[in-house]
């Protein structure tokens, strides 16, 4: 694992972070050390149970680490008020988690509301964000989440995560529940949005293609441990462990098989 020198303070720094849910017998996350650079999108990649979601939740203290320190902009998060900390961080996750009894507008403006913004300012901000994520506020603002499609709900989820203009966004498989077509278009839009807004994003997924598409860098986790962190090219080109090599080889093989199948189908016509 090669970690280049960081001139500035990283947006997020994890140092020797471990989490055990059973008093130390097993570890969901073990001695994890990594930096998230300002403005980058770091993907935490791994299969279910690898500790990627736990890692994400430790950043906004939905889960407290057993040992180790996590810093946000150089501040030890353990010393911050967790409620205030969470209001500084945008959070979107699988299944979206919109509040079912609040309108689209109320959901989008939730964090500004918690921060005590005035009603007009909140409304203005919500409408602006809805437009930004591609939802017409005049049409959608007063609807309830259940009146939206899955893709539209996820857009509202993004709007909510962005509402207070946080420097850091945490995203836990936000596209997990969406169909392939919706997912692809949203992925592209998120990519554009991320570049445009220059946010620091920590993105959890088990989908290799999504990781490669969205990640400036990818951290591969396996059984709570960091296998390798680097750009997609580095992971493919110089896999540090057999696990990483295997991880990237299998889809490549599948792609080959898929193309062969396609050409054979064409051949029989």
């Amino acid at each position, binding site marked *: 694992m090669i970690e280049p020198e960081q001139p500035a303070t990283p947006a997020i720094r994890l140092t020797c972070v471990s989490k055990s849910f059973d008093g130390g017998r097993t570890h969901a996350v073990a001695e994890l050390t990594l930096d998230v650079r300002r403005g980058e999108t770091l993907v935490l990649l791994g299969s279910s149970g690898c500790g990627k979601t736990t890692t994400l939740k430790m950043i*906004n203290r*939905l889960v407290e680490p057993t040992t180790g320190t996590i810093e946000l902009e150089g501040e030890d998060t353990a010393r911050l008020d967790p*409620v*205030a*900390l*969470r*209001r*500084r961080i945008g*959070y979107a*996750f699988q*299944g*979206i*988690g*919109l*509040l*079912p*009894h*609040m*309108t689209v507008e109320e959901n989008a403006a*939730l*964090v500004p509301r*918690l921060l005590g913004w005035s009603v007009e300012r909140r409304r203005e901000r919500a409408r602006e964000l809805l437009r930004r994520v591609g939802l017409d506020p005049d049409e959608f603002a*007063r609807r*309830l989440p259940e009146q939206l499609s899955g893709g539209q709900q996820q857009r509202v989820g993004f709007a*909510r995560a962005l509402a207070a203009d946080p420097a850091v966004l945490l995203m836990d498989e936000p596209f997990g529940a969406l169909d392939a077509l919706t997912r692809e278009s949203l992925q592209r839009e998120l990519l554009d949005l991320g570049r445009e807004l220059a946010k620091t994003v920590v993105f959890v997924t088990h989908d290799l293609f999504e990781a490669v598409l969205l990640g400036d860098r990818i951290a591969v986790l396996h059984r709570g441990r960091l296998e390798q962190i680097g750009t997609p090219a580095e992971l493919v080109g110089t896999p540090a462990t057999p696990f990483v090599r295997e991880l990237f080889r299998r889809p490549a093989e599948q792609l080959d098989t898929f193309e062969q199948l396609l050409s054979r189908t064409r051949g029989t016509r």
Partner: protein
Amino acid sequence: MIAAALSDLLAERSGELLVRTGEHVVLTGLSTGVAVLVGVPLGILVHRVRWLRAPVLGAAGVLQTVPSLAMLTVLLVVLGRIGMAPAVAALVMYALLPIVVNTETGLAGVPAQAVEAATGCGMSRGQLLRLVELPLALPVIVAGVRTAAVVSVGVATLSAFIGAGGLGQFINEGLALLNTRLLLLGAIPAALLALLVHLSVGAVGRVLDPRRRRRRAVRLAAVAAPVVLVLAALGGQSLSAGRVRIGCKNFGEQLILGELLAQLVETRAELPVLRYFNLGGTMICHSALTHDQIDVYPEYTGTGLVTVLGAPVDGDADAVLERVASGYAERFGLEWLAPLGFENTYAMLVRRAAAEEHGWRMLSDLAADAGELRAGLTDEFARRADGYPGLAAAYDLHFGEVVDLAPSLLYEALVRGEVDVICAFSTDGRIEAYDLFPLRDDRRFFPPYEAAFVVRSELLDELPEVRAAAALLAGRIDGDTMRRLNYEVDERKRTPADVAREFLTTSGLLGG
């Protein structure tokens, strides 16, 4: 037939029906309101502090299983008063369980994802509760409140036993007088009220449902409306200041005596009266009196001696009166007024014709023939020491056969000749009606139960007119008179108020 009879009754007592319905709304509303204020926080606590769940829900469940009358009586003793307070307290106890359980269930049913999303967005615990958990649990909580309120309407009918009024007052009176129309006059409006409460709590719940978009003002109005209604009904309750509060127990004779005094106080003393009639028994009347909840009620000397003072039975009427009078004055600051002139004690009855034929005038006369006779006795009388066993010893009176009969069958059995002697209460109106003959208790075996009013001494100091009014009845009602009045009420189903008015008028006691 019943419908027509009921509509007459309705027309006659529509004013009282309105008052009783108002009282019922207050009982139900206050108790449900208090139960919500206590139960919802308790439900939240139980949801957050898991180990409290079993003990709290267990305790609420146990409260639910306490029989209503027992609960009312216990609270009456604990709170030391009759009326609204113990009734509301009892209703709150019953209403707690559904509200606590539903609050807890509702909160447990809030999707974990919504809670995590809200926490992840930076909600504090208070905000989480207020903005997410309670709104999402609301439909379940409202269902609990609805159950509690409807149950309260039902249980509140029992509150009349401890003088809290409500529609149960009609039911109590109907039970005391075996009058179906009165029963229905209480039961039908109570059932309608239960239905109305069911519908309106549901409607409030729908207005509050956060998934339906409503203006804040509309929501506030939905919550405020029932509160205002209950407070208005509460405000409409007549205040007791400056009124003479007359109580009585829940059977016909007591109702007549209560009415007699009430009408005299109203017409002769010209003081307003509050009637706390149909109280559920001696101890309820007595504690109401000692706790300054009522001013006066009719009692029997023997009952005062044995039940209230806890003294042994004494056969001499004057001695008993003297003992209760001094005992009550010393211990409770209560005064026994002059006896009314009759006793309501146990009596042995025979057919008048048989009495004449055999020359039976008193119990001693019966002893010689007893071996040939069949006696119809209630189970209670056959067992009590002051019943048949004591009687048999005192008079050496041993019936040839004893038949166990339900109280309601005794008179029929005697009239038809199936039995020759029955036990009875000496002022029962049917004695006269069936031409029966009460044998004199010549050896004074049965304890004396002379009827008289017991009054708070303070009231007599403040309002001597009450003493004067009550004195008009002293010695004026003998056993025959009381039996006749009881017959009018118990058998001919006339109202105690009517019968009392007629008696006062014909006796010239209403003045003029």
